[in-house]
């Protein structure tokens, strides 16, 4: 049945509903009526050479894959940097070339790459481009040309970022937060060309992202297919959409701070530079305020956490629903939770600045808003668990990653409640507890969703399945390994080991921290290496993977219902799909199959107890 969901009946039902044939003799029953199309079919530019088809391509699916590959490539560089850092921390001096300067540079680049150039680009650029048009029933993004430029801006941004490894002084080593004044003062590694290239790269990234982001938003708002109401959209689309809104409003702060920092460095302005004494001499800077940078940066930085997390929330909701054969519990609650989390994320930024000397009432306010975010987030976790509850769970690789995500996210979320409170945060600030917290909640947890999503949608993109056996190895190595890395880090934080230290020297932590650092580093090497199982899996499955056929997971959402798999440019062949329901009609009592696709008209399932959506 999964092979022929797009049977002739559906096609007939669609064709009888077009504008001209609305009142025809063989009209579909009234229950199946869907309003005619408001807009004419989208006018698309079809590439006809290698360059226009695969390089400067205007097809959102190809752009999505391009984003995915480039972001993954950048992420692997970030992974290698983390190996080098762990090598130094676990086995000081083992890497001969490693100096304190190098260590800071690797910390900085690892952070910036993973947060911005890997996770953001992967979720919004990669999954957003591929899935939004397919899931909303659009032929393509609304501005394909701008979308293409968006990817190439990202490409240039990555190029500029990586170029900073090869300039005199190397990349910036001021930490991914790039706090002035030290980011641009001599003595910080990469305070010359390094920081300038970093700022330029960020500006390019923001410009490129804005082009893509406008596409994602307008496609969701104005280009959905007939019958696709907002409350019938898969949660994946809701997550990516809301994250894009956040990005459009948060990246301006990053852009502005990057521009001002560049001017401070190049022109010698003093936006962020107070009067500074250096070796007994007063520098030419003076009168600026470094705290302003912190506010601008975290006004971007905190929504950025949710730019990464919300798509993960959305995607994992869909994966859990499909692979436990149950409708998502509390769909509307899930949607509103995503929106509320997104809105609240703009009112919590200063919880990253509790130790900046802010007024206690200020900290009180931000602690309150921070803890309020726990409410919609906890609602989401309960809903995922209630979706699994009594579901027909298929314990495949995708489901394993989803379960891994829920556990990891709860773990990271709970340490977030610790750090959200000023009095608890102050002693824990700048320790490994913080490192463990944010890696759990916005590193490992979204990464698990990405992995699950790769195993889930690989058959759609390539037409072949990934190997389940390799996938399970990959999962268990990563899952157990990640916990071996980050659980001990909480303890390191409690005993007061500071983050961003190149070496512990003869500090009192040595006795218990040394062995633990060796253990963490060993685990980090293994987890990192385990990721190459996935790459091996992808490369081999492209050739010898089991052919997936149509809709291998028996999912309901539109991306699996294209006439050809993998979908072609324009996605839907001659006729756009018509949507009659939400994508979560699994295991409906009375239905022949345990899933009812979004395009199935009500008359076909009249005798079932399907919900009206």
């Amino acid at each position, binding site marked *: 049945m999964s092979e022929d969901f797009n049977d002739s009946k559906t096609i007939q039902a669609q064709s009888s509903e077009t504008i001209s044939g609305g009142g025809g003799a063989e009209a579909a029953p009234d229950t199946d009526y869907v309003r005619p199309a408001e807009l004419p079919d989208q006018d698309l530019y079809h590439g006809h050479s290698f360059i226009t088809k695969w390089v400067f391509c205007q097809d959102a699916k190809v752009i999505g894959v391009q984003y995915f590959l480039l972001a993954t490539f950048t992420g692997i560089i970030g992974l290698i940097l983390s190996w080098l850092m762990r090598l130094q921390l676990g086995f000081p001096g083992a890497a001969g070339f490693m100096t304190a300067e190098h260590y800071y540079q690797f910390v900085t680049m690892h952070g910036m790459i993973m947060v911005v150039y890997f996770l953001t680009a992967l979720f919004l650029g990669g999954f957003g481009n591929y899935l939004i048009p397919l899931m909303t029933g659009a032929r393509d993004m609304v501005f394909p040309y701008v979308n293409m430029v968006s990817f190439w801006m990202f490409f240039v941004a990555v190029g500029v970022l990586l170029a900073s490894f090869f300039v005199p002084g190397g990349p910036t080593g001021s930490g991914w937060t790039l706090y002035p004044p030290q980011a641009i003062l001599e003595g910080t590694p990469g305070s010359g060309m390094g920081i300038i290239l970093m700022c330029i790269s960020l500006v390019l990234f923001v410009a490129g992202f804005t082009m893509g982001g406008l596409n994602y938003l307008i496609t969701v708002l104005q280009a959905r297919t007939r019958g696709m109401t907002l409350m019938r959209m898969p949660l994946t689309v809701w997550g990516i959409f809301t994250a894009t809104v956040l990005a459009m409003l948060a990246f301006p702060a990053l852009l502005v701070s990057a521009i001002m920092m560049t001017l401070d460095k190049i022109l010698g302005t003093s936006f962020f530079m107070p009067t500074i004494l250096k070796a007994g001499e007063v520098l030419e800077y003076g*009168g600026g305020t470094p705290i302003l940078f912190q506010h601008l940066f975290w006004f971007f930085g905190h929504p950025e956490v949710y730019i990464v997390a919300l798509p993960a929330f959305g995607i994992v909701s869909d994966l859990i629903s499909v692979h436990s054969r149950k409708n998502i519990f509390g769909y509307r609650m899930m949607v509103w939770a995503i929106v509320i989390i997104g809105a609240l994320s703009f009112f919590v930024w200063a919880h990253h600045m509790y130790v900046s000397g802010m007024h206690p009432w200020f900290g009180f306010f931000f602690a309150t808003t921070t803890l309020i975010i726990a409410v919609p987030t906890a609602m989401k976790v309960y809903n995922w668990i209630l979706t699994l509850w009594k579901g027909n769970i298929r314990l495949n690789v995708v489901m394993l990653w989803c379960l891994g995500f829920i556990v990891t996210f709860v773990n990271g979320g709970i340490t977030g409640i610790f750090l959200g409170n000023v009095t608890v945060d102050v002693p824990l600030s700048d320790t490994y507890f913080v490192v463990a917290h944010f890696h759990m909640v916005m590193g490992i947890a979204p990464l698990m969703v990405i992995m699950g999503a790769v195993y889930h949608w690989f058959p759609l993109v390539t037409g072949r399945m990934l190997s389940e056996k390799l996938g399970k190895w990959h999962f268990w190595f990563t899952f157990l390994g990640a916990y071996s890395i980050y659980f001990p880090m909480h303890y390191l934080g409690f005993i007061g080991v500071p983050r961003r230290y190149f070496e512990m020297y003869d500090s009192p932590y040595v006795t218990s921290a040394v062995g633990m650092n060796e253990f963490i580093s060993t685990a980090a090497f293994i987890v990192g290496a385990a990721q190459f199982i996935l790459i091996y899996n992808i490369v081999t499955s492209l050739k010898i993977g089991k052919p997936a056929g149509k809709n291998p997971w028996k999912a309901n959402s539109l991306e699996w219902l294209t006439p050809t798999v993998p979908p072609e440019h324009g996605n839907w062949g001659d006729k756009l799909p018509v949507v009659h329901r939400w994508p979560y009609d699994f295991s409906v009592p009375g239905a022949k199959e345990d899933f009812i696709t979004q395009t199935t008209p009500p008359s076909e399932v009249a005798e079932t107890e399907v919900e009206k959506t």
Partner: protein
Amino acid sequence: MSDPKIEGYKFKPGYSGMAADTGSDQTMFKGVHWGKAMMWIFLLSDTFIFSCFLISYMKGRGSTPVEWPNPSEVFALNAFGVPVPLLLIAIMTFVLITSSGTMALAVKYGYERNRKMCGWLILATALGGLTFVGMQAFEWSKLIHEGVRPWQNPFGAPQFGSFFFMITGFHGTHVSIGVIFLFIYAYKTFAGHYDKGKRGWFTSMKGDYVEIEILGLYWHFVDLVWVFIFAFFYLW
């Protein structure tokens, strides 16, 4: 493609009706052209950029220990031997606001398919923008001549020069980009691209008069931002 008519769609009454219309299928903003929706959202994002700049300016001005220069002296212009405060800036603002008016008329004539009037009005708008940029260049060179630099300022706090050049420069860049597009659109209007639906050189999308309205949105926004910059720099 101008704004499509939504045949057969009846807007529902009341708040619940509004919610139902908003959440209905296909489009959230009924009858709104994709490009227009895109420009509005872009402008929202751009608003955040300028807000960040202006809030940074307020914070920077508030926390610098050196006194801020008096704007009515710094920006004064000598006319017939008498220093007139804000003279140049008044003219600049007048020119820019006027160009908003010609832009609005261009949109009107565009939708009336009055190709010639539309083209001339776009050209007038472009010239207004060009005049504005030219006067800004004059003001910059005057200040630079008097010794104001991004990193120093003989009249007081060096942050004055930093913020002034950065923010007016960022706004001037917006105006300049707008002027370039206005010239391109004026050419396209006179050449009849919007009447014939000729495909764009880059995007290969069919031309339509709605593009002029989209550019108009941008132009009005740039003018509006100038009003805020004017208030914050010259009147505070």
